[in-house]
């Protein structure tokens, strides 16, 4: 069995449910107060993909009311990232796409998934499926999730883990 460790970041606008989403799948090591004090909180999550045990070191970066380069800076050295937006707020979807563009520009094609959150309130969603089609992110990397009931979050994390492994194992010994 191969054991790997990978850094992933969780990026997104303020109040889109990043921390709630992360809390759904991680092993809590530190208190949430770190988010408000130093702007980032670290948790870990171990996933098994085939015979590889992948330990994800999750950097939950505090959202801001406007885009800042500091969010992107945390991506340095990351093997992948989760973009989170709020389906009930269209502007957060656009902000997520903007973050994606910035990441792409700075770090190239890094494994990623987009979690469109608050699917439990899908009736009041501003983001429509048509918007996904026009997005630069592949459809199979976009997940309609709910931090409230945990819908598809594990699936999204596994999808990201598979991308990371495909990326890493391709070039480095297993």
């Amino acid at each position, binding site marked *: 069995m191969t*054991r*790997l*460790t990978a850094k992933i970041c969780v990026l997104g606008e303020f109040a889109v449910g990043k921390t709630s989403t992360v809390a759904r799948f991680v092993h809590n090591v*530190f208190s949430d107060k*770190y988010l408000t004090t130093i702007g980032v909180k*670290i948790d870990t999550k171990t996933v098994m993909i085939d015979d590889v045990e992948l330990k994800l*070191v999750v*950097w939950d970066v505090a959202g801001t009311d406007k885009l800042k380069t500091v969010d992107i800076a945390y991506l340095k*050295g990351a093997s992948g990232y989760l973009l989170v937006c709020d389906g009930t707020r269209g502007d957060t979807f656009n902000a997520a796409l903007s973050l994606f563009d910035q990441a792409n520009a700075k770090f190239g094609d890094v494994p990623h998934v987009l979690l469109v959150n608050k699917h439990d309130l899908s009736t009041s969603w501003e983001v429509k499926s048509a918007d996904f089609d026009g997005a630069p992110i592949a459809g199979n990397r976009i997940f309609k999730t709910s931090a409230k009931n945990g819908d598809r979050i594990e699936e999204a994390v596994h999808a990201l883990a598979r991308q990371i492994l495909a990326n890493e194992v391709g070039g*480095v010994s297993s």
Partner: protein
Amino acid sequence: MSHLDEIRDLLFGQEKAQLAKLDERVTTPELRSEDVAAILPQAIQRSHEAGPALARRLRPPVDACIKSGLREAPQEYADALYPIMGPAIRRSIAETFKAYAQQINQTMEQSLSLKYLRWRFEASRAGIPFAQYIMQKTLQYRVEQGYLIQRDSGLLIAHVHQEAAEIKDNDAVSAMFTAIQDFVKDSFSPDQSGRLEVAEMGEFALWAVHGPEALLVCVIRGVAPKSLRSELQGLLERLHTAYETQLAHYNGDAGTVTDVAYDLAECLQWQAVTEKKAKTSLLRKPGFWLALALIGLLAWWLYGQYQKSMERQALTRSFEAVPGIYLDRIVNESGTLTIYGLRDPLAQRAETIVAESGLSNLAWQSQLRPYRSLDLPIVRQRVEAALDLPQSLDGAWQADTFAVSGVASKDWIARASTLATSGQFAASIDLSGVVPEAVATVDPLIEFQTMLSMHASTTLQFSEGTQLVEPGALAQLEQALLVLASEARDLNRVVSVQVTGSADATGVPATNQRVANARAEFVASRLRRRLSNYAVTISVMPADLSEAVGVHLRRATVVVTEAAQ
């Protein structure tokens, strides 16, 4: 063969042969093996001297060989290891016991010393495990954990720690440190060039040293010397040199950096506190007072024991001095002196002996059992009690013989004779001086007259002055006169006694006169005293001074007659 070939042979014949030879050496595995075998020892030597890389590379295959060999032929390995296994095991056991003994010594020392008892109290008050508290007190510093972290990603490359260190999720801690470092850098270093090198909280400190690919973060308990930083820096540089590629391209695959932790363990250093023995006054050391108190207690206890011993000896002497007591031993039983031995019922009581010995405050008890003593005073008491002398009898002891004299009833004489011949006393009873009371069948007057005639004249011999040659003779005369006087009273008659003192002609006549009178007075006064209850007239006659010389003339003559009515 063409001309060209001929020319070629002519020109390069020798080289061709050499090339063919070389080709054969390169392509033939056997020959190549020979070549490698020839240079392999030297190559290994040089590689080993150059650094640990060869050893690291060789370890996996060597490990595999050994494992395979152990699996397939364990007996051969056992045989090969046999000569060294025994000594190794013995040594290991000896070392273990030695360490164990040291641990016991240290534990005993720690358990008993005041300092450690105080620490134990402080640890319990602070709610800290004692082991942890003692470490804080005895370690100047100790590197508890070492994190080697990839600089950009914050991924943990290797982690080492002390056995007792508390470990959280290493990967998360590593990432968090990196995040904090970024936070500090973003917040307080405008040009982003600053680096977090030291963070302190309570008894712990975080020291970070930075390298081009990785940073080394050490968690240190206590106060480390500044020289430690340069040592850690040197270690990080060596790690960069030895694992340059692995550090640069680390992608989270721990399998690529397995050896790093081995070298990283060098950072786990520590240093014990060197005890500074301050020259404090002896009087300020609690141990001194404790020792003094102990010595005082010991002295007090010893004095108590000495007192007890002296009391026991005094008691022993008192009991041993008393006739009729056989003392076996005196034992101190829980503070009470118990006297074991034998006591004749006629001997003094134990209470009396203790009281007379002056040990009235003593705690004691008697375990004396009754017995029959042969001590002379007791024997005498026993004889006198058994005989129960009537008033008319007198008794006198001479060594172990009790001589009885006087007048007694026939019944008493019979009883006394039985006792005298029974041998039950360790003493003799002499009844020869006992005269039975008058017998009714004899005429009292005739008997009186017979006795009077028997004692009509008695001569008592003196040696010098009034010293009787035979004191018994006077006693016998007294006894006889006593009986005679008694008889005379019964017959209503009076006995007259005349004493005449004599002296020989040796010396001055006046002195002889005085001596002769003194002899007569001596005898007369004895008789008067003895016969005071009877009607007996006792008179001293003028001295009879002889002109001759001779000891037989030193005498007193007692003439007994019946006084005229």
